[in-house]
């Protein structure tokens, strides 16, 4: 399978999502605004839940709504991410596999990304992510060399900086949106801040 590129915006929002709910399992969708074919460029993400991940109704609702939003904004759902509450175990849960399967039905090169909580401390210099791809109907570990994060040092610095200044408190996931529907799960405000902090070389792919 091909290369996967993870943008600054997607990484930072996933990271902030995990930071906002350190005691919960969290998940979300990975999106791409690039055309199909060639490398998969994950340009954005939508944080979904921080409670009751295995339950169906809200997940179905979120998938439908994000799908609609994607068709309105020329994006597509290309993957799924999850971080487990239990830091010592970063393997995909049955519900992660199920949702990733559903996404793979619509997009062959779908990716499943697990955030490794044990590697998210400031002294870890490598991206705390484990990626899976679909080979022969099974989700298998992706070759690390096929995963690209442009300007990783800068992305890492931005994520850390935004967490330090409390920006993760502004992140809205779908669960939060349902508690207060005036809140924006596309997180435009955070997108703007990330874009301001990132150098042109680290901008949208």
């Amino acid at each position: 399978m091909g290369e996967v590129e993870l943008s600054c915006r997607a990484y930072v929002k996933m990271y902030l999502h995990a930071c906002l709910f350190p005691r919960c399992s969290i998940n979300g969708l990975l999106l791409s605004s690039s055309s199909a074919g060639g490398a998969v460029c994950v340009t954005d993400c939508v944080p979904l839940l921080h409670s009751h991940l295995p339950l169906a109704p809200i997940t179905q609702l979120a998938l439908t709504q994000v799908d609609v939003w994607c068709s309105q904004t020329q994006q597509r759902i290309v993957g799924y991410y999850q971080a487990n509450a239990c830091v010592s175990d970063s393997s995909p849960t049955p519900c992660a596999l199920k949702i990733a399967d559903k996404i793979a039905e619509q997009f062959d090169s779908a990716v499943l990304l697990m955030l490794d909580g044990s590697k998210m401390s400031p002294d870890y210099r490598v991206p705390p992510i484990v990626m899976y791809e679909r080979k022969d109907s099974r989700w298998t570990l992706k070759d690390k060399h096929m995963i690209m994060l442009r300007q990783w040092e800068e992305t890492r610095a931005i994520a850390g900086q935004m967490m330090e200044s409390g920006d993760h408190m502004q992140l809205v996931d779908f669960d939060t949106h349902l508690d207060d529907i005036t809140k924006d799960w596309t997180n435009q405000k955070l997108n703007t801040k990330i874009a301001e902090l990132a150098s042109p070389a680290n901008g949208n792919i």
Partner: protein
Amino acid sequence: MPLIPWLGLDHICFKVTLFSTEMRDKLRKWREDNFRNSEQIVDVGEELISEHGSKLGDDIWIIYEQVMIAALDCSRDDLALTCLQELRKQFPDSHRVKRLSGMRLEALERYDEANKHYDAILQEDPTNTAARKRKISILKAQGKSTEAIRELNEYLEQFVGDQEAWHELSELYINEHDYGKAAFCLEELMMTNPHNHLYCEQYAEVKYTQGGLENLELSRKYFAQALRLNNRNMRALFGLYMSASHIAASPKVSAKVKKDNMKYASWAASQINRAYKLAGRGTKENKCSVKAVEEMLESMQITMS
């Protein structure tokens, strides 16, 4: 308790200048409502203790306890130890303080030692529910879900009225995809808390997840009940819409059932639209959500008819 030591969230930007009475009131409210806003508790509590400790009288002990637990939650072992040492000095033989020592050991992932503390408490006082629950939390933190579930079931046989325990058990079952047993726990909770809309709504979600026509109809009924108890519960509103739509679209239902459910779905859709239009006014921010919901509802209408 599941603790994530890597997260050095020891100070969020929460600079508050409050009088000591205001700080005290805040801490009391958070205690009474059992909030887990540990970062705020640490911020306010640390300042209150260090700047105004002498004004607190006997309240200081319960504040030490509250701040200590919050400090553990934020990986502030320095602060936790300070609070614990004060409590140990004041109450040298207390089981309550011994439990706090145990919790600190848990936070440091020294689970075997923590268990020894709790076992010692239970030797002297077999009815000590706090110690039993900590032992179950350790199992959960270690990822031993099956054992945690077993222990929690045993606990509930003895302490059948413990709401917190029933809810914890329902969460454990949901994570294990054992929806039937999760539903049973939620039924217990609904019986003893008939006005709690959240339990109704969670029960409905579990039923929906179980699937099948009968479960869908139950889920619709309980989403509707949750709405009756709280008409602002958006999950219940969406849940009602989705369950009614699925029932109406099923080839197995009679014409009457189909018609009734289309009515429920249609009502729910109009309520959803109304709520989003109200929410969308004035804020440019969530225009995306408003449009997405509109289109989603339209597209689902088409598949239903």
